[in-house]
């Protein structure tokens, strides 16, 4: 059977949080090997969307479907989706006292003993040694949290990476490190030379896109994707006119159509 060309396909999705609908009738397709950027102002539903794709129980799909590599995963739980090959980095992950990054690495290695050397190399390449024996995210700076989160995606090796604002709340030095990590995470790997890792990157500031070129950009406003296209054009427009500019532009487009 030919592998499905679309890693992620979302059809007419509505998502509720505590009974309130935050995502309305959303459609999104990410073909295998493409990196898409999800742009939009604060509170427009970007995080809600990726938490729902990952399957966090508080983000309830009230309508529509989510397909991963052609399989309907709408009814699957968080663990199953992670095991199928979806991984995410959270913007504000919880602190877990007593549980260390090393425990997560040990868990992955216990299921894939052959990856032990590779993971040891990753620890050294990304200078993660000092993080391993610290409680997860306890006392870490903004940049360190981003790095610890990204590092876990190197370890868990998902085929679809969902990155929630890897560039927010960090200084320029940290941004450089994080940018390089994201680039390495999504770059071509020797097993699939033609393609990058499929990813959806949420960004509010667009800074991460200076390090990781996106194939397509989507603009989200009020729980809907209202505009998609060439990231260079879309980002440039947003830089010049802000998201208010998007509203005006969409309004104009609507008037032309009518």
């Amino acid at each position, binding site marked *: 059977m030919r592998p499905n060309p679309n890693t992620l396909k979302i059809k007419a999705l509505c998502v509720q949080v505590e009974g309130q609908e935050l995502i309305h009738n959303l459609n999104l397709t990410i073909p295998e090997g493409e990196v898409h950027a999800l742009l939009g102002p604060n509170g427009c539903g970007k995080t809600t969307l990726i938490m729902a794709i990952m399957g*966090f*129980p508080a983000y309830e799909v009230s309508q529509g479907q989510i397909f991963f590599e052609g399989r309907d995963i709408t009814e699957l739980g968080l*663990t199953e989706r992670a095991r199928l090959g979806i991984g*995410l980095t959270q913007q504000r992950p919880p602190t*877990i006292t*007593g*549980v260390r990054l090393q425990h997560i690495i040990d868990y992955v290695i216990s299921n894939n003993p052959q990856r032990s050397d590779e993971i040891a190399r990753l620890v050294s390449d990304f200078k993660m040694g000092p993080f391993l024996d610290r409680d*997860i995210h306890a006392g870490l700076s903004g940049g360190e949290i981003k790095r610890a989160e990204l590092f876990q995606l190197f370890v*868990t090796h998902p085929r679809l990476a969902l990155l929630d604002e890897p560039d927010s709340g960090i200084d320029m030095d940290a941004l450089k490190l994080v940018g390089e990590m994201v680039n390495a995470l999504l770059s071509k790997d020797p097993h699939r030379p033609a393609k990058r890792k499929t990813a959806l990157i949420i960004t509010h500031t667009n800074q991460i896109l200076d390090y990781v070129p996106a194939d397509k950009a989507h603009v989200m406003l009020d729980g809907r994707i209202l505009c998609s296209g060439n990231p260079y054009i879309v980002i440039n427009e947003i830089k010049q006119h802000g998201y208010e500019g998007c509203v005006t532009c969409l309004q104009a487009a609507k008037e032309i159509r009518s």
Partner: protein
Amino acid sequence: MKQLDFNDNQPEDSLNIDLGKYRAVPDTPSPALIAPGQVPPADARVMTRVGVSAAELERSATYIQEDFFPVCVAAHSEYLELLPIADALAKYDWLREKYYWQAVPANQDKYTAQASTVSEPQGYFIRVKAGAKIPYPVQACLYMTRGDIVQTVHNIVILEEGAELKLITGCTMRDGVRAGVHIGITESYVGINAKLTSTMVHSWSQETQVRPHSGTIVEAGGAYVENYCSLQPAKSVKTNPKTWLDGKGASAKYLTIILGSEGAAIDTGGEVYLNGKNTSAELAHRAVCTGGRINQTGLLVGSNVCRAHVDCAGMVVDARNDGFILSIPGLRSSHPEARMSHEASIGKIAPEQVEYLQSRGMDEREAISLIIRGFLGADVFGLGAELDARIEEIAELAGHGEA
């Protein structure tokens, strides 16, 4: 509205033991001593659960007491003396004068009174000679094979100047024994610059009642580390180990882990008296409530330049049948340069933590187990299967409770 009376926290009947109901005087002759390897396999398996290994591969000495009498007394280091306490008292006159009932007063309560009236005391005497660092731990098992008795144990541990010892004491009972009373007196003396790490693991049956009494005196530069883990709680446990940091720069560290269960009443304390200059103490209590009552207290008393911190943390997984955790960390200072602090927190397993680990591929049970294990700091104990099994049990309960 029902009010909580502070004295109601532990019902009188569960904490006050009627000692008259239990046999205190041996009704069997003292058995011949055997080697640890000769312990019957069924008993040896039970002992493994509390960290006592019959194979002794990584142990420096073994003391096993069964009910009223010692059955194994084996030391494998020339720097270490291990004797039944009765033999040590006969051998050394100074023991009675300087150490016996000096760190735990004989008249402290009715349990110490009971222990002090026993005609031939049982328990272990351990002495580590000056400067000796004993490589492998010494292990002791206080074992009960019948439920109609009160087992009384009186231990004395002496570390001479610069000595180091790790001591593992496992207290448990033969499978199928339901009741019984265990009174344990342990007096430890940590000499100048000596270090004693005492790890105590308890696993009891539902009707057992347990009253450990410990007192430790630490001299200048000495360090005392006490780890206490209650795997399978008894009907009632009440313990309040006390440490006196008398010498300059002496330190104490306690880690107490309580895994509660329905019907059990557990009251664990810990008092450290920081008398010497530049002494320091750190008390950490961790409790998981799955029903039953858990009191965790800790009192630090600073009377010199010192640093001390007490931290009580509880996790309520299931509070069936009026279960609870009561945390009371306490401080008393009588010196302007005593720097002392405390904290207490009680919570549940946070769903966002479980979900975070699930998003890395763990299932709910695996995530909860890892969180509980981390919360307890359980890695300290190096206990394998038994601790894992108990944590799994609690994880199972947590997974099916309210999220």
